[in-house]
């Protein structure tokens, strides 16, 4: 976000927030006035009503005597300005003068921390020599100076003090874009706007943890999030566990972060992986709440928040699907979301960024036991409540179905769908390309395929129905799991019924053949108004009088005929 926007939005937020002020004072020996709005803004968007004031230029010791009634003190103490022009004078100082300088700063450090010992929180940047010691081979004097002072700093700080490793911020951004030397020589500002944005993003979790705004629970989807592959499609043996990610999650779990699952899957399938998959790092004991079912994720996330009795703004949700992420962002904007990156090798970096949100100032034994405490508390109350208005979100998606009929150009994709689709597949009949070609050419069979698009993009050919007008029956009905959860199936049924009516059928027969994987559609025909007429072994038979069909009349899904 641009600096001028930050200034404006920060001003707007000031009028909105009603919380008590969170007062931060920044003490510095350089000019840091541009940090004010950026620090305030980044905290105000998290509902921390920050108010930042900046001490007098180069007056750290004197200002530290005046601090009272603040929530946090932040110190920018730059070695390059211990004395004016230190970055070039230091190399010509006599050894004695160098030692005197070191002693002088140590004394000042003592004074400052003594003055600040009552402050609730003090953050001080590690002394850095990166900027003026960029590329020299020998260990330079400025480097010696900062090393010695950092060593000293660590030995004297009290419990209320945290040292901020500013070099991590500078190296992330590059030295060049962290500083602006034009203003250093003219007005002793050193850092760039880009630096401040990154810096305050970096230290923000420390402030948040003292204000109780820290994230508490981390919720994961399963397929393509904890492992590569779709469990219901690819099967137990063919998913590939994301080991690095799971190790990072385990580390968080051990620190007391509440780990939960929110996944559209058969619960027993996921339990089987948690219990028996040899590569899994995460096991059932690490997971506090599991919402593994076919409900929409908004309802599931709400009920996780209720189960844990923590606010939605304490939740972080990770999923691979832009649909699910978009849904949660729209319906539950308080939840922080992350989408699994398309490039698998970037996932680990993203998880480290996520980890930072769970920074906690004091780590207690209780944290480590928290998982067990939470687990006892809940014992999985598996209530199925549908809250929230998912319809509004679906409406905003601009869903479009494109219907193709007996399209020879799609034979191979259609055959592939019959071979690969397991979960939303009523009869699970597998067809080869040749089979499909024959069906397309058969005048008594209608091969209806659909592709689905929304504002996130086009999911391609993802649904198939084969209507057998000779037998007045639905031979095949399937949808790829990529497009589930959008009520596409009901619109698709409208389309099938229309075709049947056009073929002058009066009654439509259908069947559900139960498999290990298609449990979620066991009652689909009943949901569409079909009557169950028979059930033998794994096969249920249904029929429907077409004139009695009641469409769900879903207005937010448009329909077009394909070419």
């Amino acid at each position: 976000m641009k600096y001028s926007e930050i200034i404006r939005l920060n001003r707007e937020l000031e009028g909105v927030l009603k919380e008590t002020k969170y007062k931060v004072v920044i003490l510095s020996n350089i000019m840091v006035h541009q940090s004010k709005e950026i620090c305030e803004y980044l905290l105000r968007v998290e509902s921390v009503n920050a108010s930042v004031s900046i001490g007098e230029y180069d007056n750290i010791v004197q200002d530290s005597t005046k601090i009272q009634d603040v929530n946090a003190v932040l110190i920018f103490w730059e070695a390059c300005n211990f004395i004016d022009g230190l970055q070039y004078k230091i190399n010509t100082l006599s050894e004695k003068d160098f030692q005197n300088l070191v002693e002088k700063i140590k004394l000042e450090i003592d004074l400052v921390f003594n003055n600040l010992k009552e402050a609730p929180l003090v953050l001080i940047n590690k002394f850095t020599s990166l900027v003026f010691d960029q590329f020299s081979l020998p260990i330079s004097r400025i480097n010696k100076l900062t090393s010695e002072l950092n060593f000293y700093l660590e030995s004297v700080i009290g419990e209320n003090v945290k040292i901020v490793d500013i070099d991590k911020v500078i190296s992330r951004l590059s030295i060049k874009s962290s500083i602006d030397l034009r203003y250093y020589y003219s007005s002793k500002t050193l850092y760039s706007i880009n630096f401040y944005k990154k810096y305050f993003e970096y230290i923000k979790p420390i402030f948040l943890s003292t204000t109780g705004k820290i994230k508490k629970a981390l919720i994961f989807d399963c397929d393509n999030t904890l492992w590569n592959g779709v469990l219901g499609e690819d099967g137990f043996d063919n998913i590939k566990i994301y080991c690095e990610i799971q190790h990072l999650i385990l580390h968080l779990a051990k620190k007391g972060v509440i780990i939960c699952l929110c996944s559209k899957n058969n619960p027993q399938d996921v339990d089987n992986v948690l219990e028996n998959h040899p590569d899994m790092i995460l096991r059932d004991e690490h997971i506090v709440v599991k919402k593994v079912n076919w409900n929409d994720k908004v309802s599931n996330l709400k009920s996780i928040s209720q189960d844990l009795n923590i606010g939605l703004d304490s939740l972080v949700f990770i999923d691979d699907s832009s649909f699910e992420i978009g849904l949660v962002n729209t319906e539950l904007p308080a939840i922080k979301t992350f989408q699994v990156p398309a490039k698998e090798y970037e996932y680990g970096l993203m998880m480290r960024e996520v980890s930072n949100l769970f920074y906690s100032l004091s780590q207690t034994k209780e944290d480590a036991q928290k998982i067990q405490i939470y687990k006892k508390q809940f014992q999985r109350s598996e209530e199925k409540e549908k809250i929230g208005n998912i319809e509004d979100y679906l409406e905003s998606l601009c869903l479009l179905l494109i219907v193709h009929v007996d399209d020879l150009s799609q034979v191979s994709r259609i055959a592939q769908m019959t071979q690969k689709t397991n979960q939303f597949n009523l009869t699970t009949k597998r067809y080869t390309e040749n089979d499909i070609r024959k069906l397309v050419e058969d005048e008594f069979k209608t091969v209806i395929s659909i592709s689905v698009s929304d504002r996130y993009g086009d999911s391609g050919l993802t649904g198939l129905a084969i209507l057998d007008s000779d037998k007045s029956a639905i031979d095949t009905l399937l949808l790829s799991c990529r497009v589930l959860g959008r009520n596409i199936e009901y619109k698709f049924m409208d389309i099938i019924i229309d075709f049947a009516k056009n073929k002058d059928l009066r009654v439509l027969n259908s069947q559900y053949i139960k498999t290990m994987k298609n449990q979620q559609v066991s009652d689909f025909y009943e949901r569409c108004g079909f009557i169950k007429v028979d059930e033998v072994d794994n096969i249920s038979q249904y029929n429907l009088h077409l004139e009695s069909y009641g469409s769900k009349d879903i207005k937010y899904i448009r329909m077009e005929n394909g070419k």
Partner: protein
Amino acid sequence: MENRIKKVMSDVFDIDIESINNDSSPDNIENWDSLKHMNLIVALEEDFNIEFDDKDIENLLNFQLINLTIKEHIVEN
């Protein structure tokens, strides 16, 4: 482009866009002190993706001059 400059100025100085004209300067904008001037410069540089010459910075003290200088930068690139 003039409106973009005015937008940035209005954000930085907390004033109405409509109140900004060619003669706007520290003389008639109370908020335009030396610190805010620095903020304005970096905000404009970021917005237009340019870098002012350090010798120019202290002279960019009215709207017209800022406008002309940014135009020159954009033409040069």
